[in-house]
């Protein structure tokens, strides 16, 4: 029964990891940029949420209404200034610039907000309560809600990319930048929109993680970026629903690892990542990576 419980918990945390991963996957799919500051931006979003809640006393659950648009604007601006500037030079430059951004954000948070970890909505019924199935399986309401949010976000992204005007533009620019430019698309603006959407999902991920666990300056890289990346690779590069599959696989691997030895949770996830990298580099969902 403990194993069934581990698998159920793993599947549910997979939703959280998909929330981390979909923004990373989107940006890579659209402009071949891996944003190494991805996780740190999620932590920034979490800290912004904590700040807004402390100042305005809005309910924790509604903080995303403010934080997601704020991060989307930040995403557009960061894309149009730093990342686009780097992309115009080379893909390697984008790595150096976003890595620099990651280190600057992490140490900035450390400098201004100390290394203390902070939670979101501690004591809230949704965060603390759970329901039980049978005698041993205990499921936190929060994890179910996060999983549902992840599915809704992925559905929304799917709809956005396939049916909306900007979604079509994003796909056009991703497929052939020059041809899209010839047809009158401003690829810089389109990249900005994609970054805004990706940063919006990052904000949701940061808030969700702040409620699920605790945020501190190193959470962004140690947990969010690396887990997001592992989920993307396990699921399949460049596939949106692959991030959910990858997130679930990572979550289940971690929970089973924790079941074997409580300190091996993270290691188990990485080992599964490495096995997939060797045996099935195209990922579980088997869609070929966009070249």
């Amino acid at each position, binding site marked *: 029964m403990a194993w069934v419980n581990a698998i159920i918990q793993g599947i549910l945390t997979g939703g959280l990891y998909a929330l981390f991963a979909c923004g990373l996957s989107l940006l890579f799919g659209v402009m071949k940029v891996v944003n190494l500051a991805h996780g740190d931006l999620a932590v920034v979003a979490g800290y912004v949420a904590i700040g807004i809640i402390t100042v305005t006393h809005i309910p924790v659950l509604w903080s995303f209404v403010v934080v997601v648009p704020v991060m989307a604007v930040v995403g557009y601006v960061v894309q149009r200034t730093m990342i686009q500037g780097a992309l115009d030079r080379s893909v*390697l430059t984008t790595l150096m610039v976003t890595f620099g951004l990651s280190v*600057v954000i992490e140490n900035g948070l*450390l400098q201004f907000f100390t290394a203390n970890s902070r939670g979101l909505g501690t004591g809230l019924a949704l965060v603390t309560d759970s329901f039980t199935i049978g005698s041993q399986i205990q499921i936190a309401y929060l994890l179910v809600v996060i999983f549902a949010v992840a599915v809704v976000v992925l559905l929304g992204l799917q709809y956005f990319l396939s049916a909306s005007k900007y979604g079509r533009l994003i796909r056009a620019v991703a497929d052939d930048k020059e041809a899209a430019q010839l047809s009158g698309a401003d690829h810089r603006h389109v990249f900005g929109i994609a970054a805004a959407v990706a940063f919006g999902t990052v904000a949701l991920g940061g808030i969700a993680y702040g409620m699920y666990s605790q945020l501190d300056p190193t959470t962004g890289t140690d947990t969010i970026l*690396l887990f997001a990346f592992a989920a993307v690779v396990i699921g399949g590069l460049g596939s949106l629903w692959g991030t959910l599959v990858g997130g679930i696989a990572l979550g289940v691997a971690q929970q089973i690892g924790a079941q074997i030895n409580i300190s091996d949770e993270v290691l188990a996830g*990485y080992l599964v990542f*490495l096995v997939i990298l060797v045996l099935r580099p195209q990922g579980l969902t088997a869609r070929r990576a966009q070249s």
Partner: protein
Amino acid sequence: MSPVTEPSVLPAADFRVTRSQRNVAWTGAVALIVVIVLAMFPYIVYSGTTTILVQAFIVLTLASMWNLLAGYAGLVSVGQQAFVGLGAYFVLILAIHGSSPFLALPVAAIGCGLASLPLWWLVSRLRSGYFAIATWVLAATVMLIIEKFSSIGGGTGMPLPGLAGLTPALLTAYTYWAGLAVTVVALVAIYLVLRSRLGLVLTAIRDDEVAARSSGARVDLARLLVFVVAGAGCGAAGGLLAISQLQVQPSAVFSIQWTAEMAFATIIGGLGTIEGPIIGTAVYMVLQQTLASYNAWYLIILGLVAIIVALFARRGLWGLVDARLGVRLFPVGYWLRRNGDRSRGGLLGRLR
């Protein structure tokens, strides 16, 4: 190489291909004098100075290796802390078994070079951005595995044994000489690599990977060799770190901070030249020493400067010097000049 501007084709006898510096022996002599003076430092400066210089040696070795990876082979690795940590643990394990930590340094370098082979096999199929994070995940995985062995300190680490017999003055001096030796060997190795056939392939990859591939350059083999050399170099620096700190703690030796420091020093100094990391390390040490009492500020400022340099001065500070003066301390390129014409006009083209 800049295009040859002569409109007419000249007979081959009129050309001469030289190294980019006219007199290599002259540069070598200066380098030798610098090394000899540096080697005498423990006799002439305070131990506080040599301790700071050991830090500089570590950063310079790391930065030079990262330059080889990112500046030449196009491999932006964010997981080089894996080798820093492994190097430190090689020294620790050998010291536990009775070896002198100083004698363990070359073993650590070779061990890390060998360890880089399986790690390369895991990450080599990934490109650019995915390669970067995969190396990061790999470094985290290596640390988690090392932490499982309680005999070498587990998650908390342990002090480095085998140095208690030395007086503080001797220990400081030996550590300094070890640091100088590691750095000199690393720089000479990189210099020789870049002057070799492999260096020509690497320079070609640096300038245009697609063109290098289509000219038949064995890009993947060159990348593998660079990854191994960089692994060994970072391992030696990690071993040096263990000796200079007198203890090995997993979260400290496997910290992403090492990769941040080597990357920032290289980017600021200038990617794709041997001189760049030296300039970058100097900038790094000045900032770090000035801002030492302000915690993380030096990393924040270094990061911001590195971002600005990456965006607006791709060849870094040394690139600015080179563009104006055409000077090379380490001549690894070639100059194509007209026979008998030593003036600036006699230079027909150059490969930097």
